[in-house]
């Protein structure tokens, strides 16, 4: 194989130009959460979710609605969304539980078989959880067959006909939101109620919540009330250090919530 000096130089220059072009393309895709609005400029629709933990009373109506709406067997110990209870006692201990994912609400002060004296409680609160619809979803990266993906409007979905049930995504998710559907035997996760939001309805959990602890909006629209809150108030995401860039933002999150 021979290569003239002229050809070698030509190919080197072409290679350098191509290498320089790659990072320019990549920077369009992932940005810091704070720059979310800038990142979606030009895109019309980017679904986002706002959880106000100050408003949640732990009634569990969201879990009930989610399981019914999305045909998750009602008595199976799995759910696309769930509510956690945190009770912090004065000795600094944190008691956490989520019996049957909070589906039947919190109707007893008993937590993991223990009744804590109200005098000993420093603070206690409820935290609803669901899929964070990450901008940088680890569950999608690990799928070996392309059965899970991110739609153009930022929702991560599972292709039930294509999923082989290997469970890599279940292990990859740092938030533990994925599970196997007991009937279809494929990977299952929150879809932001894709069938409802694309028709202009509210997600089932958002509609069911009496206290507006759950809200949905469009990050692509600066006039959207939820987007305004995310941009102007002190919101947090879960496990920011993982670099997953969640689309679910929390108001009033405590450091004990993981």
């Amino acid at each position: 194989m021979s290569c003239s000096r002229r050809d070698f130089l030509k190919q080197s220059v072409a290679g350098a130009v191509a290498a320089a072009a790659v990072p320019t393309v990549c920077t369009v895709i992932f940005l810091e959460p704070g720059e979310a609005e800038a990142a979606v400029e030009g895109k019309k629709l980017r679904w986002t979710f706002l959880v106000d933990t100050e408003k949640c009373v732990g009634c569990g109506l969201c879990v009930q609605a989610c399981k019914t709406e999305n045909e998750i067997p009602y008595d199976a110990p799995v759910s696309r969304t769930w509510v956690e209870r945190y009770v912090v006692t004065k000795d600094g201990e944190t008691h956490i539980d989520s019996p049957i994912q909070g589906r039947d609400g919190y109707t007893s002060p008993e937590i993991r078989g223990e009744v804590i004296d109200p005098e000993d409680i420093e603070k206690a609160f409820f935290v609803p959880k669901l899929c964070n619809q990450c901008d940088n979803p680890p569950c999608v990266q690990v799928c070996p067959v392309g059965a899970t993906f991110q739609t153009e409007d930022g929702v991560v979905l599972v292709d039930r006909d294509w999923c082989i049930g290997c469970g890599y995504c279940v292990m990859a998710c740092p938030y533990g939101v994925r599970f196997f559907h007991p009937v279809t035997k494929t990977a299952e996760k929150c879809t932001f109620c894709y069938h409802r939001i694309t028709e202009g309805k509210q997600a089932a959990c958002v509609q069911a919540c009496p206290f507006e602890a759950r809200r949905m909006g469009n990050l692509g629209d600066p006039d959207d009330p939820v987007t305004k809150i995310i941009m102007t108030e002190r919101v947090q995401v879960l496990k920011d250090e993982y670099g997953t860039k969640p689309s679910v933002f929390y108001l009033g999150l405590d450091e004990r919530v993981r």
Partner: protein
Amino acid sequence: MKNHVLRPLWLALGLIAAVLIARHFMVPDDFGVHGDSFTYNFYRLGAVKYWEDFPAKYQGRERCGKCHDENAETIAASKHSIIQCENCHGPGVGHPKTVKQLPVNGSRELCLRCHEYLAYPSSLRSQLPGIDGNTHKPNKECRKCHDPHQPDLEG
């Protein structure tokens, strides 16, 4: 070259061709990169349609109010106006055409989801009117005395 060298070569090429032909027929036409990123947007376009076409169950209180306007008005004027009809009455899909009667949940447990008093400072829960479910008329349905549509009025 000798035949015994070429024979495995043809076999290997034949196998590769067979895999490529099988792949051509087995992978759906709409499978590919639909978006900016191969990592995140490599999928079957039909899967998006599947989730868009998933049947909705909850209809929302506006639809309930179209026929049950009297109940809708009563509850809208009460403290329970923030609660969706379907949270207690069940999802309204198919009603009234195929599902004549919705399975209303009038259980004590449903009310206690909010009204079991939990002494949780820093949570809205402790500010809701609440009872101790173990001592306040145990095992009796709340709606025997309280009207869930007009919770202000005590029976």
